[in-house]
């Protein structure tokens, strides 16, 4: 049961992260294709967006490991 709980936690978190990362990256590609001179600011915003989006799935990975090993 613990393995199932850990798998569900990580799986759902990865799903959320992938959807959010996909939106961020697609908007960034749109922006770079429309205005290549704004590549720098768009890179920075993409970095911040991806870092923040992956914070919650990392907590889910932590919870999954704690379920498995405690």
């Amino acid at each position, binding site marked *: 049961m613990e393995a199932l709980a850990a798998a569900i936690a990580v799986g759902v978190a990865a799903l959320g992260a992938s959807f959010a990362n996909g939106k961020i990256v697609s908007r*960034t590609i749109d922006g770079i294709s429309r205005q290549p001179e704004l590549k*720098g*600011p768009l890179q920075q915003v993409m970095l911040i967006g991806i870092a923040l989006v*992956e914070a919650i799935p990392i907590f889910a*990975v*932590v919870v999954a490991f704690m379920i498995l090993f405690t």
Partner: protein
Amino acid sequence: MSEMSYQQVMSRQKKWMLTYLAILVLAVFFTSYHHFLTGLLLGTAVSLYNLSLLQRKVRNFSFEVHNRPKMHRLGTFSRFATVGLALLIGFELEVYFHMAGIILGLTTMFFVVIIDFALYIKQSDS
């Protein structure tokens, strides 16, 4: 802001993290909270690796978008794997590394990114 500015952002964020790591190393040696601080040190070291990995992937990704049609990945699974590795080390060597410290250290990169963005956003507008 140009590619050089993104380089500056990358190096600035790494400097913040390395300064914090240096303070933690000193704190481990000169305070009595060894157990918690070694966990924090491990978590922060892994967080620094994750941050540098993410920065490189974003830089290479935008280069690929601009110059070549072939797309690469963003390395999400690699970051999750390093977090898992840090947690496994914490579970195996619980005598040396405090789990709460490791988990807190893993979140360092998010604070660094947010604080760096908040401090230097006015600079980028001018």
